């Protein structure tokens, strides 16, 4: 593991509507844009429900914790820069910026295929012995 190494990419075929519905429960978030396509259409954003930001972020977290051996997230700073729509193909990928002793710093993004980033992150990970 060294600076410049690429993390992923991991492709996600699309977040199913039933997953988004389940996350409304996990987050206790009744916002209709996650549940009802008509609510999304009413604000002019198409006819697919929108996934929750934390669900999108969890995909990036999985990228970081599943592709670099045994690591724990120590710090994570995330910007939510766009919506993800149900069934929309996504790509999670990252890049290692530095490795120092048992700490790895990296950047990662979640991109909606053909539309660009929806989440950008910087992270510090601790390598677990």
């Amino acid at each position, binding site marked *: 593991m060294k600076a410049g190494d690429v993390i992923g990419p991991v492709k996600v075929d699309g977040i199913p509507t039933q*997953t988004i519905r389940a996350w409304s429960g*996990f987050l*206790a*978030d009744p916002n209709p844009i996650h549940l009802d396509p008509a609510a999304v259409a009413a604000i002019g954003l198409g006819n697919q429900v929108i996934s929750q930001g934390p669900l999108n972020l*969890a995909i990036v*977290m999985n990228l970081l914790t599943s592709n670099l051996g045994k690591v*724990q997230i120590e710090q994570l*700073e*995330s910007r*939510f820069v766009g919506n993800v729509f149900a069934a929309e193909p996504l790509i999670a990928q990252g890049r290692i910026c530095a490795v120092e002793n048992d700490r790895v710093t990296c950047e990662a993004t979640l991109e909606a295929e053909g539309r660009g980033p929806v989440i950008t992150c910087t992270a510090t990970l601790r390598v677990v012995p």
Partner: protein
Amino acid sequence: MSMSADLPAPPDVRGRSLDGGAPYVINANENAALCHSLGTEPAHDGTAHPIYYFIATQLGMGVTVAGLCELCGFDVADGPMIIGSAVRFDAPLYVDRPYRVTGSILHIERKRSRKFGVMDVLEYRLALVDGDRDVLVTTNTWVLPRRELS
């Protein structure tokens, strides 16, 4: 984005406590369901998915998101948007362990933006506490679009 001296001041909520009441417990079955929804298996050592940093603090703080918006004079139906979140973990999260949530509003600032028109940018800090030590500290940033002022 720009500061706007011509706009009315945002509500004076800086320093408002967001301390939670009852402890928050990450339910093991729910953690498993959450992991499965992401196509992964839950950890076998009792640790929870790290996204619970967000879920546990949001659900364990002293007000709902709707209540937080109301504190800021904003109707949740007008569409608050989270734009940023930072977290520092001092320890992993575990299922079936009671955590307290403490926190407060750090900042609210009224601005104009090309994308949102007039908006309040709200920043608040929450900590998840196990016994007497912080397990994690997080800062979330939300945009509250003030369409009535745009």
